[in-house]
């Protein structure tokens, strides 16, 4: 895929009237960043890009208070990576988006860059220039220039990703690859499970004590679209609003349970976190349970019911007291 192909495709969709608006990524204001752009004329399509900096999951714009976007009569096109397409599928199965009204445009993803990893590579020095291709990344700063393989700096969520290309699409720019095997997808979760209970609690406490309760994780999440989030309910108020560790932990645990069987592990939450909390570990634990117990992988088929809204009568119930 080339950026030119991408722009031309979007342009023709707009000029042929197949869509009224395309949500995509444009160049960000800092090296190694991108920003969501809303393209409604063919001229604007020239600002579109796609590379390893396109880390936002754009499906989020179909939910939240912009749900109006999906309910309008507008025909909307959206650029998706593999994980983003799964979010769309989930939202379609949950009747938040009308499949007919959305044009899904797949783009080939090789993983998105975690800038914190890149900054780590150059010992915290400021990066002034960032270039990448499907294999490697080059960064320049005041007194350095460094090239390294893309795989060394992609987000954790991309490292174990086996569905890099859209699972559901109307158009694909380039060639969509078949999903790989997710046999070893949860090695990190299994590592953590091996620790003893005390150790796990201490690590969690350490990790989550940095939380500033800005809810960036929730707000960038396409699966988190309640009109009023449980943490915002104030009559009665369930959860304290201060960054106190038990309130914070309860917020994160419950949020994880609310997206159980609905999380596509895109990692948008983790990348949005200003405090760099490893949020995805909990999501991945839940996803692993959902896969192992109910055989369900979120957002992989339009006909699948979300796991937590479904059941089988003779299910494993080993956790119920005998």
């Amino acid at each position, binding site marked *: 895929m080339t950026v030119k192909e991408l722009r031309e495709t979007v342009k023709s969709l707009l000029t042929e009237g197949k869509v009224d608006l395309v949500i995509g990524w444009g160049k960000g204001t800092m090296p190694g960043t991108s920003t969501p752009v*809303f393209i409604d004329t063919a001229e604007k399509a020239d600002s579109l890009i796609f590379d390893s900096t396109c880390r936002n999951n754009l499906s989020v714009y179909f939910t939240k208070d912009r749900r109006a976007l999906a309910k309008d009569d507008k025909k909307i096109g959206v650029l998706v990576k593999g994980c983003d397409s799964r979010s769309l599928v989930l939202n379609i199965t949950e009747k938040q988006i009308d499949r007919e009204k959305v044009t899904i445009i797949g783009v080939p993803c090789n993983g998105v860059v975690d800038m914190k990893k890149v900054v780590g590579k150059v010992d915290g020095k400021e990066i002034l220039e960032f270039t990448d291709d499907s294999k490697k990344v080059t960064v320049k700063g005041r007194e350095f220039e460094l090239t390294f393989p893309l795989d060394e700096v992609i987000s954790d969520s991309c490292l174990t990703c086996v569905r890099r290309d859209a699972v559901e699409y109307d158009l694909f720019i380039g060639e969509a690859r078949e999903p790989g095997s997710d046999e070893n997808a949860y090695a990190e979760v299994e590592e953590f499970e091996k620790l003893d209970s005390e150790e796990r609690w201490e690590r969690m406490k350490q990790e989550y004590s940095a939380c500033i309760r800005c809810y960036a994780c929730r707000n960038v999440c396409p699966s988190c679209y309640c009109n009023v989030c449980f943490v915002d309910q104030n009559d009665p108020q369930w959860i304290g609003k201060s960054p106190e560790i038990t309130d914070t932990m309860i917020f994160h645990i419950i949020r994880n349970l609310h997206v159980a069987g609905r999380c596509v592990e895109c990692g948008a939450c983790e990348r949005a976190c200003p405090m760099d909390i490893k949020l995805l570990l909990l999501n991945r634990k839940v996803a692993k349970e959902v896969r192992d117990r109910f055989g369900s992988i979120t957002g992989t088929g339009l006909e699948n019911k979300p796991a937590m809204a479904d059941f089988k009568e003779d299910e494993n119930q080993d956790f119920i007291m005998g």
Partner: protein
Amino acid sequence: MIRIEKERIDEFIRALMETWSVYAPARDGKNTLFAPVEDPAGIDHGIFNTDKSPKEIFFPHSEVLFEFEGGEIKKVERDARPIAVWGLRGCDARSLRLLDKVFGSAWQKPDNDMFEDPYWKEKYDDSIIFGTACNEPRSTCFCNWFGAGPHDGAGMDVKVVDTGEAFILDPVSEKGKKYIGSLKGWAEATKKDVTKMKAAAKEADKAMGEVFGMDGIQEKMADLFLKPVWNDIGAKCVNCGACAFICSTCHCFDVQDEGKKGKKGKRIRIWDTCMFPIFTMEASGHNPRDMSKDRLRQRFMHKFSYFINNYDEHLCTGCGRCVIVCPVNLDIREVVREVMACEA
């Protein structure tokens, strides 16, 4: 002006710790912030702007207003020692000044007796600020948009310049002069130091991006209030509070009670932000700022219009933290540019 060789900086801080409760940049896990100093060796003098803003030293994320038991109210006594902050950048020092206009008494509206905030004043009024001049501003810095610069001393009591081998302490305020004057056993800064300081300042100024003219932004913003430009600017905002909570000048808060009625508990104030729908949601269910773009607009109106009307300054000092943390790269500089470019 005095000179402290880098090897002796711990000695200086230790002396400071005898009378002051000292806060300085430190690393906490993956993030950097201003933390109370227990051991001067733990200070990270090389940190660029801390990830968390230093406003929390004087305006904590969650602060107890008072405790209660039954109907009895008891104020919580804080550490009686005054606060000294070491290593504050110019942008953050000016942020504290701005917050002092709101909470303290540095500035009062001419026709309105503002209430003083006792919790802010008891900490800020007696504090001393050792600011660090920025030798290497970053591409996200835009303090020069607000008439300041990387080596600006506004809001500091003592400006500290790193010349490579030493820290030069240059008193800015009366309080700073008095403190530096009271010190013994430190050498005066040499002519060579002064030359180096000037060179560093020049170098730092050169590293800053171009100044963007913001004249008349407050009227411009007000004129554009109902204009569709806000739909465009607001389209990508997901309404999280990352920008506001990381901001060194955002200061809205919520007041909540923790504990049970008639029993033990406390009333606390907690950072809050206009980005959350719940911020203005009334008991009836009516929300005056219902849409995402209304809330985004409020944040920028407050910074670049309302605050100027009330306090003659922008509520932004160009530290660039929000530029870095925004999950959708909604760059505050771009917002300003877009607004200024818009025909009313």
